[in-house]
């Protein structure tokens, strides 16, 4: 029986956003008997609704509210109003994610200690480490059904993977496999359907083989009777009382009417752009710089991973679009080895795009025969994606636009990002290794493509031991306001080289445990 809570019920936990952070937190709290109202800006789409058509799916799921961009990153030029490729729907970007689920490496929790001070970077150690997170990662891997963990076999390799694997092994790489994926790989190692190698992982899995909060944690939470999800509810502002405790949220409901929901605790999980935007838009007389912003770190240290792609063209067909999009990884470059000319490391993962998105992302803005001769060989292409650790920088940040407004008249976010020299050195290294992989298996042509709008958005409410250096403590609780939590990737202190979802989920499970025990103890 799905719960329904009163707007004036001030005993509920309000969670803003229902993705990897908010969706998991909502279910975990509901399972523990905590009453939760989850406010989701998007609508509810399930596997039968997903569209295996790139542009149509983008129109259905993507977050396309007004945003502006600045900085020297190429996304600001190529996609000036679209800094991110994320989802506005129940389940958030867990609908779109490809399923890659890998743990941080131990050294990455302590980037400042292990990399040392880097000019221009705002590096900091996380207040937690690999040992602290290990049991939470175990739970996250079980929840997501990650392949190559527990008794779950790896996925079979697709054509795109086979080219990738042979190229990697030709270069001497040894940590090469079909990935740790939150995609069911056999009929008897989980409750979902096994992967049918359909492609279109980015458009929502029509089989439900990939883990998404939309059809796992959200309905499981609702089944407890403790969770109410209000879809198409866009939070405008968080309210507080004279003691500084947060008390309620104002949101525009599905009819565009402003509503106020009272709360005992508020957890913000609106993704790394919207979460700091909401704190900034909630500025008050008591908190003129925005909520939980005494450190001035809200919105700063925006990270989006060092990314880019490499495509190899061969004299014979590959048909990279067939099968699981990202089931392939090389981890040999993920370690920290500053002799390569940069700190931190990167993963190489298989990737494919359909013809329409390949045309849009291959070399945005380019035209003429150099461009089209690449597309002419689409059937003979193999592709990979780079995911590396980018460095936090104070001025890479989300701020409120002075002019641009969203559909509700609220100041839109501006996303400013410029590459750090370390990011550029890493990307160039990864491009060269990717090209070498494909040339080792006979590519007649290989080319890099620039970063796409960001799907990994991190760091704008970062976790810190010292309240002066970050926004939240090791529980994701804001340093300034005891009953205000951050529950998404914006709490990342540094980005590490890994796809972030598994870590967001592990942190959310851990945070739910903490919040429930603090509530029981009456401390919040």
């Amino acid at each position, binding site marked *: 029986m799905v719960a329904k809570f009163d707007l004036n019920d001030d005993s509920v936990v309000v969670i803003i956003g229902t993705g990897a952070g908010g969706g998991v937190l909502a279910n975990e709290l509901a399972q523990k008997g905590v009453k939760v109202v989850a406010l989701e800006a998007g609508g509810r789409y399930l596997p039968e609704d997903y569209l*295996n058509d790139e542009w149509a799916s983008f129109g259905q799921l993507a977050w396309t509210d007004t945003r502006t961009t600045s900085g020297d990153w190429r996304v600001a030029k190529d996609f000036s109003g679209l800094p991110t490729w994320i989802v506005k729907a129940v389940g958030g970007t867990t609908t779109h994610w490809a399923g890659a689920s890998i743990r941080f490496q131990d050294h990455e929790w302590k980037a400042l200690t292990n990399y040392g001070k880097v000019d221009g970077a705002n590096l900091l150690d996380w207040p937690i480490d690999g040992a602290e997170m290990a049991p939470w990662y175990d739970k996250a891997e079980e929840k997501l059904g990650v392949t190559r963990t527990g008794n779950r076999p790896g996925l079979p390799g*697709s*054509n795109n993977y086979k080219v990738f694997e042979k190229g990697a092994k030709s270069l001497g790489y040894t940590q090469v496999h079909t990935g740790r994926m939150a995609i069911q790989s056999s009929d008897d190692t989980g409750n979902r359907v096994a992967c049918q*190698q359909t492609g279109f992982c980015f458009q929502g899995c029509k089989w439900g083989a990939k883990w998404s909060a939309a059809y796992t944690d959200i309905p499981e939470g609702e089944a407890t009777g403790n969770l109410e999800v209000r879809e198409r509810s866009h939070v405008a502002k968080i309210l507080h009382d004279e003691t500084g405790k947060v008390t309620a949220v104002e949101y525009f409901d599905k009819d565009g009417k402003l509503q106020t929901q009272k709360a005992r605790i508020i957890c913000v999980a609106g993704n790394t752009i919207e979460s700091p935007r909401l704190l900034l838009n909630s500025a008050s007389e008591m908190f003129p710089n925005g909520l939980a912003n005494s450190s001035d770190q809200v919105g700063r240290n925006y990270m989006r991973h060092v990314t880019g792609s490499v495509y190899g063209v061969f004299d014979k067909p590959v048909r990279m679009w*067939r099968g699981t999009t990202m089931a392939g990884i090389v981890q040999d470059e993920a370690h920290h080895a500053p002799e390569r000319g940069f700190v931190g490391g990167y993963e190489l993962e298989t990737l494919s795009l359909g013809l329409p998105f390949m045309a849009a992302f291959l070399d945005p803005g380019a035209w*003429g025969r150099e461009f089209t001769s690449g597309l002419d060989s689409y059937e003979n292409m193999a592709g990979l994606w780079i995911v590396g650790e980018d460095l936090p920088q104070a001025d890479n940040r989300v701020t409120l636009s002075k002019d641009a407004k969203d559909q509700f008249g609220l100041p839109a976010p501006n996303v400013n990002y410029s590459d750090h020299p370390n990011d550029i050195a890493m990307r160039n290294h990864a491009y060269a290794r990717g090209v070498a992989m494909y040339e080792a298996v006979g590519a007649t042509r290989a080319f890099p493509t620039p970063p796409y709008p960001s799907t990994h958005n991190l760091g704008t409410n970062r976790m810190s031991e010292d309240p002066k250096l970050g926004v939240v403590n090791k529980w994701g609780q804001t340093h300034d306001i005891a009953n205000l939590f951050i529950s998404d990737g914006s709490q990342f202190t540094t980005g590490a080289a890994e796809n972030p979802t598994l870590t967001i989920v592990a942190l959310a499970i851990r945070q739910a445990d903490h919040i429930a025990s603090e509530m029981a103890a009456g401390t919040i």
Partner: protein
Amino acid sequence: MTQEHLKGITRRALLSRSMATWALAVSGAGFIAAPDAAWALEVAVITPEQMATLMQMARDIYPHDKVADQYYAIAVKGYDSADSKDMVAAGIDELNAAAVAQGHASYLAIGWEKDRVKVLQAIETGVFFQTVRAGLVTGLYNQKEIWPIFGYEGESFSQGGYINRGFDDINWL
């Protein structure tokens, strides 16, 4: 523009495209048609010559020799509207002025692709060129009918995915 003039341009255009299997013709009566009458495109608001210019631009921007003219026509036919009319007229004037500046009668009158590309390069930072180019990214490549020309198969869910249909059938590695 006189009928005579249109025919002259069309004749030159035809000559310039003698390597093509067939080429489009501006009929002068609100139609652009393939010479073999395989298809025709009626224009309502802009002139046939403007439509022919847009189609040539589309092919010069994203030239795929295996993709027939009709798909480029579909990609730009949205400009035949009251909303786009003024933008198209001003843009083509800019394009033709650039052609004249490079010693040609007009953009469509240029015989060789490499010479037309030079004219396009002269206006490529302008709003008109960028609007047409950006529109083609979806207008051309999102036509399902052209996907097979590139080997792309589109959705596979309706056929049960590729698990039994070749997701791992590569045989040349």
